[in-house]
Structure formats: C-alpha cells, structure tokens
C-alpha cells in the first residue's frame, strides 16, 4: 500500500490498468482486516465490495465507465441508509436495521461507480465528538502521541470516517456534520474534512440528527479529493425540501489555487488564551502564508460567537428529540417487550439508546416544553439569526475566514472529560458554521509537539464551496503536509 493513494491518483492507476478495481478493493479489505483494532468499521461489505469491483472492472473493459472514479472503494459513515446493508447509526436501537432503500448521497456515489467497503463507526446518532458514544465501542485514532502509548480519540462524530482515511482503511469516506462532526475528527486525524453549505448535499436517506444543521460531506487525504467527492455527492434533490436548487459547480475542474487579492478574515472572538501555543502558532503561520501568497489579512469580528455553543445545544437536541421519536419499537429496529404500549416504549428506548442520546432527547424535550419554549428554543433561534447576520456582515468585508478547527489536538480516550459540557467545547469553533448554514473545511496544517495533527478551518459564504476549496488548495500546495501516522496496529 502506498501512502500516496488518493482519489486522483487511483483514477490514473485504474485508467492506465496499473491496478484493477478488484485488486484495489482487496487491498483495502486487507487493510481493514489488519486494522480491526482501530474499530473503524461497524459493517464490512467484503463480498458485495468484491462483486461490485468485478463489475467495475467489466465496465472498464467494455469502456462503459460511470465516471473517471469508477471502481475506487470508499467508506461510508454508518448513518447513510444503504440498501441491503445494515445501517445502525452506531446505536443498539438500530443494530438490526437493514434498509431496503439507498440514500441519495450513496446512490450518487454508486452512480459514479464508487464501491462501498462498508459502514464506518461513529458516535451514536452522530451525537458526540470523541466516538465514545458508539454502541460498537470507541474508534481509535491512528495517531499516537510521541510521548505516550495511550490510545487517542479520533474525534467525532464521524470518527470512523476520519480514522479510516487516516489509517488507509479507505482512500476517502463520507461523513456527516451537524456541529463539527466532519471537521473536528478530520482535524484530529490529519485529514481533510469538508462540510458543504446547508442544502448543497441531499439529506434524503441519512439518519437524521438535527435536520436544520445536518449536512453530509467528504473526508479525504487532499483538498483535490474533497473537490472530487463533493462533485459526486452534491446537487439538488427533489426528495429533500431543504435541498438547494442552486446549480452545482464542477469543483474539481475549477479548482484554482490563485488567491491574489482575496481578503482573509481572522475573527478576534476565536482568539483565546486557552488555545495551545502550537495551534496559535499554526494559525498565525497560515495567515502569514496566505499573505505571502497574495491575500490580504483582515481582522474581523463575529460578535455572537460565544453564544453559538449554548444556542446549538438547544436547537440540535430539540430537533433530535423529535427526530428520534420514530425509534419506538413499533415498526423496525429493537423492540423490548412490555406489558403495554407505554411499557414497551420505555423498555425499548431505555435499552436501545445510550446515555448521550438520552441526555440530548431529555434536553430537547425540555426546551420544547410549554412554558420553556420561548425561554430556550425561541431565544436560541434568535441567537442563531444573530450569528447568521454576523457572517453576512463579515462576508461583506472578506472572502474567507480562517480559524483553528478545534481548541486542542486529539486527546486520550481515557482522558475524556466526565462533564458532558466540557466535551461540548470540542465543537466551539465548528458549531457557528452549522448554525449559519455555511461551508467549512478543515485541513491539516502541521503537527504539534506531540506529533499530533493540527487542523485549521476555512469558512466562506453560502454556496461558495469553490472559493473555499481554492483557498484550501492554496494552503495545501504551499505547505505540502505529508505527515502520516505510524501504523502501530500492524505491529
């Protein structure tokens, strides 16, 4: 296995018949087998992937390819419903659920000839930032601190998606991001994670967490690959009423790292004494680099940033409490017998949901209750509007905003804070982007003193994914980040 595999490079290898889809798929399946300790996959589609790979090879022979990327295997977060393949949302309550339908995003991948290696572990119902809330256990970060042998969290909720790319258990993967669930684990694993604008990618067939915030996106090794995968998965879907009718662009073809004359905003509210020195240093270096490459650095203010997290932790649980009501043991998923309907509900949901999911359902139910609705939900929506207008104002002055992706690098699984609110702070830099519906990308910039990846986040205005990818590509090109984790799990 070469570490240089990317969607782009594999497309060339396949085209030149240097490797077949079946060989490639087998290689990744072997990596997955050898990397079982990382616990990235909930389901491995060994048989199906190989059959699909053979079909792709036949298409290649008959020059009937679905796209340039036909035959490349990827990993799929276990939140996307996949026809005939168990889809669990990493929850006990759906642990036996096999959809008879395919999500729009995974269908789009299939239409491009991509092959699914299996379903990637994540936090239960995408609720978490460490991957520890999964019913199937924690995912382990392929990275380890040079100073310790302890296992680290991969971030979450798309922890399996990020760790799998980082550990070469797939070349690229699909994740979802409700408050940072693509960008934060990408940052913790040294990968590229893109959350598109709200409405850019269809939500149809993705197990819903918070409908007004959820958005699917790619986790890849490079910005180029992020553009390639975004091309494949995005576009209008009439089955999703919130899907944008804005025409999709050809992101990869139009990728252009020229940023001369662009204005890059540095929001003062994201500065903090608590930020690790190495993260601060990367942030500053990146700003200087962009300046060197022809951009202008502008200090900006996003005054309501500090209210984003509290607002998010009202809105997201509120929507989740309602979205998760359908898991009631009546039609599919887990059912625990009870004496009557209510008893069945209570037993099923008590047993089927984990603590973090229950916590958020309770919070959500509470903030929507009569007498509290105005004080919490309505107030949070007002804050959300204020945050949106912060960004509207900012984008009158700048083309893109540069921030750290996370307030720290990956931490030890054993050291996860016991206070859930402490954990929620992992998403402090990513949450405002979801509330404002904007596209955001996390790219690896450097490694810290423990040799752990530091991710930086770029944000642009809604549906300006092209500009976002261009700036990210500029940075990528300049720094040429090429750190890879040592594959300790192979020893």
């Amino acid at each position, binding site marked *: 296995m070469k570490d240089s595999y990317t969607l782009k490079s594999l497309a060339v290898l396949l085209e030149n018949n240097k490797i077949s889809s079946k060989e490639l798929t087998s290689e990744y399946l072997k990596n997955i087998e050898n990397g079982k300790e990382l616990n990235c996959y909930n389901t491995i589609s060994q048989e199906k992937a190989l059959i699909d790979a053979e079909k792709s090879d036949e298409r290649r022979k008959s020059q009937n390819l679905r796209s340039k990327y036909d035959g490349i295997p990827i990993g799929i977060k276990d939140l996307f419903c996949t026809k005939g393949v168990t889809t669990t949302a990493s929850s006990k309550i759906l642990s036996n659920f096999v959809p008879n339908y395919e999500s729009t995003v995974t269908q789009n991948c299939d239409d491009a000839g991509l092959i699914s290696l299996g379903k990637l572990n994540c936090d239960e119902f995408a609720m978490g930032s460490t991957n520890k809330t999964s019913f199937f256990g924690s995912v382990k970060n392929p990275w380890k601190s040079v100073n310790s042998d302890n296992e680290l969290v991969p971030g979450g909720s798309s922890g399996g998606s990020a760790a799998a790319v980082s550990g070469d258990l797939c070349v690229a993967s699909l994740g979802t991001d409700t408050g940072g669930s693509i960008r934060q684990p990408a940052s913790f694993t040294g990968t590229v994670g893109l959350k598109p604008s709200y409405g850019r990618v269809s939500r149809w067939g993705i197990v819903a967490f*918070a409908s007004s915030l959820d958005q699917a996106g790619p986790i890849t090794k490079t910005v180029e690959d992020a553009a390639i995968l975004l091309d494949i998965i995005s576009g209008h879907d009439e089955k999703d009423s919130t899907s944008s009718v804005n025409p999709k662009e050809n992101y990869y073809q139009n990728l252009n790292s020229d940023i001369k004359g662009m204005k890059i905003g540095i929001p003062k509210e994201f500065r903090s004494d608590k930020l690790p020195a190495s993260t601060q240093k990367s942030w500053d270096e990146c700003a200087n680099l962009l300046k060197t490459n022809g951009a202008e650095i502008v200090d900006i203010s996003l005054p309501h940033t500090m209210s984003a997290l509290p607002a998010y932790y009202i809105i997201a649980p509120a929507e989740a409490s309602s979205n998760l*009501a359908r898991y009631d043991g009546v039609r599919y998923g887990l059912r625990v017998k009870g004496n009557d309907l209510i008893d069945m509900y209570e037993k099923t949901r008590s047993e089927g949901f984990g603590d973090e999911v229950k916590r958020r359902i309770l919070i959500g139910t509470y903030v929507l209750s009569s007498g509290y609705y105005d004080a919490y939900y309505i107030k949070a929506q007002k804050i959300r509007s204020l945050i949106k207008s912060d960004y509207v104002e900012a984008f009158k002055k700048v083309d893109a905003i540069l921030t750290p992706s996370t307030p720290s690098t990956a931490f030890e699984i054993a050291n996860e804070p016991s206070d859930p609110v402490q954990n929620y702070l992992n998403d402090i830099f990513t949450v405002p982007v979801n509330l404002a519906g904007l596209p955001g990308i996390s790219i690896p910039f450097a490694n810290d003193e423990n040799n752990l990846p530091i991710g930086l986040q770029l944000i642009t205005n809604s549906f300006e994914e092209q500009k976002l990818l261009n700036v990210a590509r500029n940075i990528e090109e300049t720094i040429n980040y090429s750190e890879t984790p040592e594959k300790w799990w192979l020893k």
Partner: protein
Amino acid sequence: MVAQMIEGWNLVIGIEIHAQVNSKSKLFSSSPTDFGSKPNSQVSLIDAAMPGMLPVINKFCIEQAVKSGIGLNAKINKKSIFDRKNYFYQDLPQGYQISQYKDPIVGEGFVEIETENGQKKIGVERLHLEQDAGKSLHDQDPNFTFVDLNRSGIALMEIVSKPDMNSPEEAVEYVRKVRSILRYLGTCDGNMEQGSLRADVNISVNKPGNELGTRCEIKNLNSFKFIHAAIVYEAKRQIKLIEQGECVNQETRLFNTQFGETRSMRSKEDAHDYRYFPDPDLLPLILDDDWIKDLQDSIPELPDQIKERFINEYSLSSYDANIIVSDKATSEYFEDVVKNRNPKLVTTWVTGELFSILNRKNLIIEDSPITSKRLGELVDNIENGKISNRQAKEVLEEMCESGKGALEIIDEKGLSQISDENEIESLVDNVLNSNPENVKKYKNGKDKLFGFFVGEAMKLSKGKANPKIVNDLIKKKLSQ
C-alpha cells in the same frame, strides 16, 4: 324541543371540522389514498417514517386548501409554516404529526347558515393542513394491536369555527354548510361514513348575562345525527351538573353512539404537551399572488350564489332553494330537469316524490334510479295532461322498479289520460242516464252526491279520464 329543555340557558358551540383533502396522493408522499384498500398497501417509506425519510409538500393539497379557504370567504396567508406536533402513539410512525400551528395557510373567514331566525354568519377562525395518523386495530388478536398505515400521511384540512353557534340545530347547519361548500369545490368528498369529514364539537353552557361556562370537547363525530345528539346530551349533562352545584371539568369526551351519551376520555390535566415547533425538514410555504388569483378565478359557483340565482331565475322560495342547493349533485340534477320546464312542478317532483323514494331506498341522488332526463320526461307528461299527478306517482314508482321510461310505462299500463271532451261527455251522459234517482236527489239539494257521479265516471273510464274535465262537465250537466 331542545330550546325548551335548556330554557334559561345559553349554549356556546365551536366546531373543528377535519376534512380529508380530495387528493390522489398523500400530503407529503406519493402514496395513493384510496379508501378501503388492503391494510398497509398504501404506505411509502415516508408514511412509515423509515430512518432518513423526508416530507415533500404535495402541491395539489395546497391548492385544495387554498380553494377551500376562498370558499369559506377567508384570508389566504401567503406565508404559512408546517410544525411538528409531538406525541407517541403506535399509529403515529414519525412520533409527531406534521400540522400547522401558529401560521396556518388560511386565516379568518365565515359561512352563512339558515336558522329559525333567518340568516346567521358563523365565523371561521382558521383552516390548516395536517397529516392524518394510521389506524389501530385492537380486535384482530387477543394479545396484539395491529396497525394499518394506509391513512398515515393523508392530508386533512382542519377548519376551526369561532364559538358562534348557540343550538344543536345551528351546529348541524354549520357542518352541513361547510361540507356542502367543500363538495361544491371538490376539495373534500364529504363522505362522513368513510370518515372523510368528522367534527370535534366544543360546548359550554351559561346563564344569559353570566360569563362563559367551562367547555368540553366531544371528539370525532361522524354524522349530523350524532352531532345533534351529542350536543343535546352534553348540554343537558353540563346544565344538570351546574344546577346540582357542581363544576364542569374541562375535558375531552367521546360520544358513545350506542348509548347516546358522552363519556370522559381525558381531562385537561392529562392533556399532552405537544411541543410544537417548526418542522426543520420543510421550508416555510410561500404562496404567489398570481397563483392565488388563478385559483380564485377557478372557483365554481357556490351554494349561496346558486341559491340566489335559483330564487331569481326560477322564482323558488328561499326554503326550496336551500334544500336544493345544499347538495351539489341535487342542484345539478334540479337544473337538468328544470330547463324549459315549469319550475314549481319540477321543484315539487324533485324535493317531494324523488326525495321520498331516495330516502326510502337510502340512496344519494348520484345513485338515483331515475335520471334527471327521465324525471324530465315524466314532468312533461304531467304538464301536457297526458297523465294526472296521481298517475304520475304510480309511473314514478314503476320507473324506479323497472328502470323503464315514463312513456313506455304509460303505454304499457294504458295510463294515458283521456282529455277528449266528447269522449268524456259520453261517459258522463252514460253515468247520469244510468242513475236518474240520484240525479233527482242531487237536484233536490243532496250536494254530496256530486262526488258519487265523479267517481262513477272515473270508474267507467278506468281512471283515465281527466278528472278536471269530468268535474267541469258533470257540474255543467247537472246545473242544466
């Protein structure tokens, strides 16, 4: 009757009507909506609330709701919002019903009803769209409840009245009127037996001048008879409670159709907290001015307008016009028959004889065994004197049984009326000549014998003689 029973009390009634939108597919999915299909045969992934499924608004249902709003003289809201009403039940797959809470698609309006004291305006508070739930079947298995999701997701219009009705009759008239308007518009088939239209009735009683009483809601009434009976029962129950010095508790009650009484279903304390909030899967619904205008232009003539026209055009009484226009099919039937015919005669035959046959056979006019064309032919034969009214009734019965046309029956039965004066004169002469004694008695003042002569003449004609001519001729001959 009711007025006496509750004399000295004031009834305040408000009604929520749930009307199923006349649409081939559901409010947020493309599943069909046919009534009486095999259980769970009309259920999409969305209706079953499978993970990741999303609702997409059915434009046709929006159109139907707006049309209904126009028919109810109501304000159409250009922006409305779909909310989630959250509660758990086995036949509610999503765990919430998508409904409209604060911003309904249709705002205030009114309908006019006929009451004992003339026309009365009943205010409409709002009309909103919502999903129906599935159906729980409790009688299929001793241990399990079965769920049929065919109805899950079907579009309903909830039409909320103001508390403007003050008697069970007004309440029934209001529901009749709304049903009639929706049927004219074609936005709801109004089939109450199949549950396409059902009513929740809110009722309270108070002494005139006192403040309003505590109200109870009676759920799911699906016939005019039950609406009336439930209100009568509930009013009596509440009055009795107050007269005994007790309190009326605010609660939801069910009407037991078997015993004709209402029973408590749940009290205010047990009321759900539905945790309404805007459905994040759906964007606010924005209606375009031109689109609304087009719908306005497409609205057909509605009962109030038709009634006025019938009064002007055909000189119908307000009473008759009201009966005829209350149902779209009836008014269409009437207009078919009345064209170029005597409106008074037609009205009598439609609202009298035809209705009594339909009632007897328990048929709606759409299924009438006598088409409007056939009834027209019958009326023609009455008008041209071929048959008498009495004979016509016989013919109508026969038409109904045999499916034959009026003329055919008249010919077959030899019913054709004799109107030829010479022929009748010879009959009359025959009768008078055969009964010289009675002629004498009559001329001496026994007036009652007149009927005897008429009867004899008719008998002689086998009932076919035109009775008027017979009468006239006998009178003439006897006075000679």
